[in-house]
């Protein structure tokens, strides 16, 4: 083991990030930066939506524009923000956590990434075609999505379906890569039950992609044919069935929620032990619960269709499977509480985001169980109650978990420390903004305000004003985040190889790690992860590795 191997990589030239690089760490940062660009775009759309909903009348933008805005907000946030940002984290974390030099298929990895800006441009371009962008929501249910008032081939809906299909291909390419890498490229000694939980959840989530995405892609191809070739898979006047599309769509798109939330469970499982200074409580149960969630997650999709005209037995069956998901999810929540219990808790920025995210997630879980029960769902489905529920999941839990991950692993991959003060300000604004934005949506839904409306009855005004104020606060919350990222990346204090005193292979690499990570000197793993308080090394020759790293840091 020579110190040359372990010296921190000189900061990559910015040109790297605009090239077809095959280095997973470059691709990871490319994914995350592109994702946050689209996060700002879709966030801006959300601000306009909430601006329109400040008053009952449709008075800020035309109704067609409103429908385009909310459709693109959802589509961009899902396909261009949350999936890419998670794939960015996968790229950064999976190889370094398992001691692999790179992903299994580096060129495929780069190809999967470069499809993201391509379909991003396609989607943004749809704002500028004569028909305007797609306006039928991110579900794009036919027949309304097949209505094409101008009759031109290149319509917003056409570009939308194309972009979603490309996104699906990109995600499948990514999933093949992540699954292969985790299965085949782990460090010596790292059996499945010595693997960090983030890798377990990534494996579970990417397996879901591989099983679910073909259904969506098939459904989308038929939608495209109905739209452009005049087939009638979903057109009732030609003998088609519009409800069939809903099955294809939700067969993937419900599991898609687990594709999002499972890696966030992984992040929580990594971070709670670090900042509680205790091992993850019940590691094996937490790891296996991910796969129970996968199995159940594949058989719940009809709960999105309770009012669509499905048989009573189907409603009852899918209600029960949906309720069952609460059990493995509960196992995880209790495990995180067990990890915090009697720990030595440090309320750093990443830990605050984890705790805030867990708080919101528990709330979302409870409204989720309410939504699972058919009679209550019949009343609140397609109302703001559902919008509130999933924004608690996606923003309140998932995005907060992603912020936690970014603050936690920022020093590792940039070699710089983020600023705590700005980080904590970001947390407070995010937590308050998210709750002020999304909590009022629940009473609105219970009162009977449908989702996707550009105008509403005056009795809904009070809660809508609160929600809009929350949305604007969330918009403001991004400012300290961006300031923090840019300024600390440029001139933040230098990071050591392990600033949080965390246990994991990635923390035995220099910050930032060299291009091929451990290269040919992959350490042999000799104990399970999260050995906080046990004073046993994770890998062979750990003391020497750490000494060399410290020495290199002292000499730079």
């Amino acid at each position, binding site marked *: 083991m020579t110190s040359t191997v372990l010296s921190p990589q000189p900061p990559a030239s910015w040109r790297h990030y605009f090239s077809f690089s095959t280095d997973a760490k470059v691709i990871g940062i490319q994914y995350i930066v592109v994702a946050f660009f689209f996060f700002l775009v879709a966030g801006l759309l959300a601000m306009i939506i909430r601006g329109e909903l400040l008053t009952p009348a*449709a008075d800020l*933008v*035309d109704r*067609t524009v409103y*429908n*385009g805005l909310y459709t693109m907000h959802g589509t961009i946030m899902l396909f261009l923000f949350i999936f890419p940002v998670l794939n960015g984290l996968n790229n950064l974390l999976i190889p370094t956590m398992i001691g692999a030099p790179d992903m299994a298929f580096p060129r495929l990895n780069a190809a999967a990434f470069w499809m993201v800006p391509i379909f991003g441009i396609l989607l943004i371009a749809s704002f500028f075609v004569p*028909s305007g962008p797609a*306006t039928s929501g991110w579900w794009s*249910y036919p027949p*309304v999505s097949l209505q094409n*008032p*101008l009759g031109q081939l290149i319509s917003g809906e056409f570009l939308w379906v194309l972009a979603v299909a490309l996104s699906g291909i990109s995600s499948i390419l990514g999933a093949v890569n992540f699954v292969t890498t985790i299965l085949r490229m782990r460090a010596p000694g790292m059996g499945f039950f010595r693997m960090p939980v983030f890798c377990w959840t990534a494996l579970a989530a990417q397996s879901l992609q591989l099983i679910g995405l073909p259904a969506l892609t098939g459904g989308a191809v038929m939608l495209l044919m109905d739209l452009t070739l005049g087939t009638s898979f979903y057109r*009732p006047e030609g003998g088609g069935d519009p*409800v069939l599309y809903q099955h294809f769509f939700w067969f993937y798109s419900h599991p898609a929620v687990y594709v999002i939330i499972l890696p966030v469970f992984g992040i929580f499982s990594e971070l709670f032990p670090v900042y*509680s*200074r205790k*091992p993850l*409580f*019940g590691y*094996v*149960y937490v790891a296996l619960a991910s796969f129970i969630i996968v199995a159940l997650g594949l058989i719940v999709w009809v709960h999105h269709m309770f009012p669509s*005209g499905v048989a*009573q037995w189907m*409603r*009852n069956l899918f209600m*029960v499977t949906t*309720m069952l998901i609460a059990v493995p999810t509960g*196992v995880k929540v209790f*495990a995180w509480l*067990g990890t*915090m*219990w*009697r720990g*030595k*808790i*440090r309320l750093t920025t990443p830990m605050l985001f984890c*705790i805030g995210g867990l*708080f919101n997630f*528990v*709330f979302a879980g*409870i409204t989720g*169980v*309410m939504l*699972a029960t*058919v*009679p*209550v769902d019949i*009343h609140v489905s*397609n*109302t703001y109650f559902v919008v509130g529920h999933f924004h608690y999941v996606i923003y309140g839990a998932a995005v907060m978990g992603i912020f936690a991950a970014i603050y936690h692993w920022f020093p590792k991959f940039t070699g710089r420390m983020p600023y705590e003060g700005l980080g904590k300000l970001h947390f407070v604004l995010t937590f308050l903004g998210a709750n002020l934005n999304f909590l009022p949506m629940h009473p609105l839904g219970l*009162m*009977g305000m*449908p989702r*996707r*409306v*550009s*105008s*509403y009855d005056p009795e809904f005004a009070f809660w809508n004003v609160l929600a809009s104020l929350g949305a604007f606060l969330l918009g403001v919350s991004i400012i300290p985040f961006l300031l923090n990222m840019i300024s600390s990346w440029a001139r933040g204090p230098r990071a050591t190889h392990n600033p949080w005193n965390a246990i994991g292979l990635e923390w035995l690499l220099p910050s930032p790690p060299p291009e091929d990570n451990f290269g040919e000197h992959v350490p042999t793993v000799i104990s399970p992860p999260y050995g*906080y*308080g046990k004073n046993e090394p994770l890998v062979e020759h750990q003391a020497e590795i750490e000494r060399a790293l410290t020495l290199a840091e002292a000499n730079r």
Partner: protein
Amino acid sequence: MSSSSPDRRLGGVSLIALAVWIGLVVAISIWMAGQAQHWLPVQASNAAPLVDGLFRFETGVGTFVFLGVISVMAWTMLVHRAEKYDESDAEPIEGNTRLEVIWTVIPLVLVMAIAWYAIQVNTELGVLGPMEHIHPLNAQEERGGYPTDRLPPEQVDVIARQWSWEFGYPGRNVSSTELHLELDRPVTFRLVSEDVLHGFYIPAFRLKQDVIPGRAIDFTLTPTRLGRYRLRDSQFSGTWFAANQADVVVESAEEHASWLKQGAAAPLQSGLSPAANEYAERQTAGRSGWPTVVPAPPPQVNVPGSSSLPHDA
């Protein structure tokens, strides 16, 4: 924290404090369950009390679980914080199989209990009026007629369009863009759509059913409270989706009979269609926006009704 390794056994005082806290959480949960009713619209159908009962129960249980979890979180944050400059690790507790079994089994029992309750409510709702009965349109129904074997005692045809609602009273020769129902009398709707998916949703009735083009869906309910309520389109249907609302009037048998009688005598005229009005304005004002599907012309009905009177829910 003075006791970095506190006594593992709970002392008498701690036990009492814990019991008091749990009692407080239970009390708050029960109070929230009662509050939950106020978050919902008035109950105007026989389905509403059943749905609301389930929702109150879920709110109570949910509050208990939420506060329980948050209490533990808050406790650890207050009591188990690392002291300043304490860089050491905590005691490495890796798990506890008994605890893990308990927190698997209790949620399992709890959610299955809720599911059982929900299935009971579902079954009961099905008995009150079949939740829905779907059949393909046949030629006779396409023309608005009924196969004689299926003619129900009180039937309302609901035609959903982009973007208006039309209600027909077969056998009475009355059509309207305001839905009138008789108090405490079961009514079966036959839901059809002429274009895209719509959602037949009356929040005060707690009932919702998608309207699917190419199918006729029978849907039965019983209104139980006099008043004026909103019917809202609940499945996104395009540009004027938000404006696709109608009023529902629940009235006494006498009022209903006289409304039907007056309606039958009234000549056909243009019904309500806010979308058609807005579209006309949009055309003259030359307002910016993207191309849209043109609204169907206002349906020709005997009674247009109103959608600007104050409604109860």
